């Protein structure tokens, strides 16, 4: 990795964890641990849970995970620093990830990232002063047929341009309700982290079945006429 290593930076200070929050985390952690035959498997979702409550992985959050899973804080920290989704400094309400892996970069991701840096006055892995936006270059997010792509709190924003991206961050900063181009209404960073800890937010029915690029194969097939699954009959067209 070129540039300054984030791993070299210590975990940011945080508000002390209240007793009520601690109780809530302990209860939710028990729910997570029950999903696995061995409780250490709960560590990744529990770290998502800590981010859901505290906005990033705090030193107290690490200590609590270590205590509940009977690990050392060093063992937990080693995991935290390995995965890019775990943040050790506060993240804005909206995490904006611009794909700058090769295909998206070539298709315009570099231009989008450059424009957003200029527009927001921040660089990679930095947060705007109003706490609204954290900007990050992300690796391939498996939406290459929609390049260039950016993610807001891990929801898809497909086929972006520098203009659409600046408009998007302006709307987010203004507090407007924004919906993914392919997915759900954008929730806060902490709400998404709770989802990723395995707590269903009941919003699977939002958004479409698929986006336009996803559909191009079936659309082309329906024009040419296709016959499949004929051995059991029912499905042939």
């Amino acid at each position: 990795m070129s540039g300054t290593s984030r791993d070299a930076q210590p975990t940011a200070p945080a508000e002390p964890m209240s007793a009520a929050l601690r109780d809530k985390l302990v209860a939710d952690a028990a729910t997570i641990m029950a999903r696995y035959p061995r409780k250490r498997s709960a560590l990744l979702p529990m770290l998502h849970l800590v981010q859901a409550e505290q906005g990033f992985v705090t030193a107290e959050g690490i200590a609590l995970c270590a205590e509940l899973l009977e690990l050392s804080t060093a063992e937990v920290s080693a995991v935290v620093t390995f995965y890019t989704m775990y943040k050790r400094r506060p993240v804005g309400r909206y995490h904006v990830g611009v794909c700058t892996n090769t295909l998206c970069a070539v298709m315009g991701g570099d231009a989008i990232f450059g424009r957003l840096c200029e527009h927001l006055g921040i660089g990679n892995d930095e947060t705007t002063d109003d706490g609204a936006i954290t900007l990050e270059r992300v690796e391939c997010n498996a939406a290459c047929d929609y390049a260039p792509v950016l993610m807001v709190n891990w929801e898809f924003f497909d086929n972006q341009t520098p203009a659409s991206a600046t408009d998007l961050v302006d709307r987010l900063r203004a507090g407007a309700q924004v919906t993914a181009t392919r997915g759900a209404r954008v929730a806060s960073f902490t709400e998404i982290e709770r989802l990723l800890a395995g707590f269903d937010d009941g919003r699977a029915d939002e958004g479409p079945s698929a986006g336009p690029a996803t559909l191009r194969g079936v659309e082309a097939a329906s024009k040419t006429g296709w016959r499949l699954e004929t051995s059991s009959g029912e499905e042939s067209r």
Partner: protein
Amino acid sequence: MTAQLSPVLTRLYGVDRSWTREVYEAHQGYVGLRAALRHTPEEVIQLVKDSGLRGRGGAGFPTGMKWGFIPQGDGAPHYLVVNADESEPGTCKDIPLMMANPHELVEGVIITAYAIRANHAFIYVRGEVAHVYRRVLSAVNEAYRAGYVGPDVLGSGFELQITVHAGAGAYICGEETALLDSLEGRRGQPRLRPPFPAVAGLYGSPTVINNVESIASVPSIMRNGPAWFSAMGTEKSKGMTIYSLSGHVTRPGQYEAPLGVTLRELLEVAGGVREGHELKFWTPGGSSTPILTAEHLDVPLDYEAVGAVGSMLGTKALQIFDETTCVVRAVARWSEFYAHESCGKCTPCREGTYWYVQIFERLENGEGSEDDLDKLLDLSDNIFGRAFCALGDGATSPVTSSIHYFRDEFIAHVRGGGCPFDPAASTVFAMAGSSSELGANP
């Protein structure tokens, strides 16, 4: 000739509420599960062997054979782990599949778990796709409520629990043993093999790890029979699969076709390379598969034929780049990716990818020399076959193949004092014309 498309996994794409159990069941959903439960687990494994299904995650290992390695009657718990950590650059097939048709995956999980006698299955979804995670979680919960999953699957006496697990951002976790370490709550670093996961996998128990598309192909085999499946494809590469076209193509997207279709045929359906441009290079299956050029347009896209021209079928992620793209810039960025994602466990990969990045920076800044090409190839020799896992080998693919096909372009960077390409010309909005769209380019 135009590609004969064959939507099976993609047949529900775009159907209203396609992600729900109700709609899935209206399209033969869970018919395959009922068929499978009428067989013994051994018979189910044999049916999948007979179908010729091979792993769709890149390696192409026969799926039924992998299942057959699980010891039967050993008394130990068995596990099924679905690799839904789709992160290989260019690869975008499993994510839309899980968004539109998650029940096909869930049904496949149940059948597979039954076949290998696993009572607990895990779906490891990369964390960076919130809505896909929602859809999979919701589908699993629906399957529990319908009695497809739980203490007594459809009254068969078979017990199954499914856990949907979110990753946290690490490409290496797509490597199956790194995924297991990650699922055990550790850093995602690959394990030494042997022992293979079939013997000692998750928690040291016999474990099958399969890609999403492999597992999602199983219900169609159960409901239509192995002969139906193996009638599609080529001699050793059977069945249908999802080809993902991206980049400088008129209609990028997901095209499901029998194995063995060619890029020329797929491009015909997809409207060709973007108007006014021509194909320069492409990947057959993600950035870890050596790049190919226009001379390979008629290579059948199956495991054998792509291998025969020095690349790999991989994930069938066809990234198309036209003549506006600088191959050095493209490979430099992939090298940065591998350096970023190298887990650090082994020296060849950790140090080799680091030096790739340094050398590419020199070349792009016009500070490189022709010796740098030899240095890149020498580094590649020292990574390939010497790294602990396939990530290292994969990192060398774009480097060695791009120097093989485009040595002159590397030399031009040396002699011309940097990159001769205008990055704005390769963007999708370059054609739109508006200068306000061009933004800041490096």
